[in-house]
């Protein structure tokens, strides 16, 4: 009992510690630079080395959103459809092979996805898009979206498949007994019954895309800009952190402190996502026995 309590306590204390450090360093950052939170979040100029330095992280937030949205557009539909296929349609033997195979995708180191983007996806995009007159940069958001999307498919498919196949057989039989087709049973009984789990898998996958670093740095580069063109280079919040830590910002400098402020912003975004998902779950879930 005491041991278990100890373990739980360590988790809580660690989390609290991290938030505390992030918080206090973030306050230092705002004191040192004299920026307001509004300038920080909505400013479009990110020039840490300029005199005076400017820290508007909107381009980073935008870059992060671009990757999250783009990769979700790929991963959520494909992941959900594969989950439905695996749980409702696939013959048992095929499923026994397919599911672990999909999960293998999740075991590939993210850095590998990064150079696959650089070495395979981007050249392929160039091959397809440049003949029709679209300029593709070597570092571009689209190829990052594609590889991050592929990376998070197994999170969606595997977690969703677990909840879908946990929907009681009695519910399916009841629906079939009323003359429902397999499609109606899958989409109108099984999916709504497992919706809360499916939404959680979405949120987890999106959080993962937001937090993804290495693949995005390698694929999309480090150029903070507000652009709607996914064929150009962008910079995400995580990529900025990598950029600064691997540069020569000295401890205590505004650039160094900005790491914590960006980290804090990232934390707030993920937290908001979790709160929203909690709300969605409570509001829409169908409880079964």
């Amino acid at each position, binding site marked *: 009992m005491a041991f278990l309590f100890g373990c739980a306590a360590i988790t809580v204390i660690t989390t609290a510690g991290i938030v505390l450090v992030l918080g206090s360093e973030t306050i230092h950052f705002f004191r040192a630079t004299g920026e307001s939170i509004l300038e920080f979040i909505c400013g479009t100029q990110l020039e840490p080395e300029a005199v005076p330095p400017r820290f508007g992280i909107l381009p980073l937030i935008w870059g992060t959103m671009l990757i999250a949205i783009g990769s979700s557009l790929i991963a959520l539909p494909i992941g959900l459809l594969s989950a439905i296929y695996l749980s409702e349609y696939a013959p048992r033997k095929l499923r026994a092979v397919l599911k672990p195979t999909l999960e293998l995708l999740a075991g590939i180191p993210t850095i590998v996805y990064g150079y696959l983007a650089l070495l395979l996806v981007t050249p392929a995009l160039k091959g397809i898009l440049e003949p029709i007159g679209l300029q593709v940069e070597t570092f571009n958001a689209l190829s990052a979206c594609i590889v991050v999307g592929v990376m998070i498919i197994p999170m969606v498919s595997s977690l969703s498949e677990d909840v879908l196949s946990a929907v009681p057989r*009695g519910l*399916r039989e*009841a*629906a*079939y007994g*009323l003359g429902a087709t397999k499609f109606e049973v899958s989409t109108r009984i099984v999916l709504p019954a497992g919706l809360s789990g499916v939404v959680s898998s979405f949120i987890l996958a999106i959080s993962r895309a937001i937090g993804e670093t290495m693949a995005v740095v390698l694929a999309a580069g480090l150029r903070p800009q507000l652009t709607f063109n996914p064929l150009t280079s962008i910079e995400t919040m995580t990529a900025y952190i990598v950029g600064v830590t691997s540069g020569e910002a000295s401890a205590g400098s505004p650039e160094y402190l900005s790491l914590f402020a960006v980290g804090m912003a990232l934390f707030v975004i993920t937290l908001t996502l979790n709160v929203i998902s909690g709300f969605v779950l409570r509001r829409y879930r*169908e*409880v079964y026995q």
Partner: protein
Amino acid sequence: MSVSETVAAAAAPAGPSPGDPSILTTEQLSVWYGTSLALKEITIAIPRNRITAMIGPSGCGKSTLLRCFNRMNDLVAGARMEGRITFDGDDIAAQGVDAVALRRRIGMVFQKPNPFPKSIYQNVAWGARINGYKGDMDDLVEKSLRRAALWDEVKGKLHRSGLELSGGQQQRLCIARTLAVEPEVILMDEPCSALDPISTARVEDLMDDLKADYTIVIVTHNMQQARRVSDMTACMMLDEASNGNTQRTGIVVEFSPTEILFTKPNDPRTEAYITGRIG
């Protein structure tokens, strides 16, 4: 209806003769799960607008037989059947017969109440809606709930979850949901086994009401219930030839009017079962 009429109904050869008193028939029906034979050469004819009970010891294939009638066993990997089943004279396993369409005409109520995790209203409306019901849904929901003797208990809370009801109410909700699709036959697999005596009595009364418009086939372990509600009873047993093997094969040993089966059974095994010496 006289006893001789029912006997004639049961004995009548299957076939689409006009005014055929049987609605569902099986001829030499055998069912396998994988390699194990679960039902052997069953030949019976279920009379229209009557309640037919199926009794017999556990594992003798009552549910299996019931699930053949609406091709629910199609959903079980490895299940296979031989022989013929007809519904209204038509082979239900023939090429081009759509199991989905068949299940609209042959509804099913399960042993464990299994309402959808949706509102009471949606539970009743769902089946009708997917089947393209065009009329007034509120009317249909009310009519079906009244028919299932549940309306008075739920009319004020149609938008509450079906899962908030008691077990007996849930089972009547499942019956209402089946009625809303307007099937011709209702298969009930031990519909009262999870219910208390009062709910059981309500469901039994209900079956009696429904008989005028529907054909009901009910599996039950409760012999008093079979006796109370049914017109015909099929007594099923494990085939002695299969005993001792790992395989448990079910056969129908007697299919007679309920009154006769319980008072003057023709088969010694029926007698042994109903007097409690087997099973």
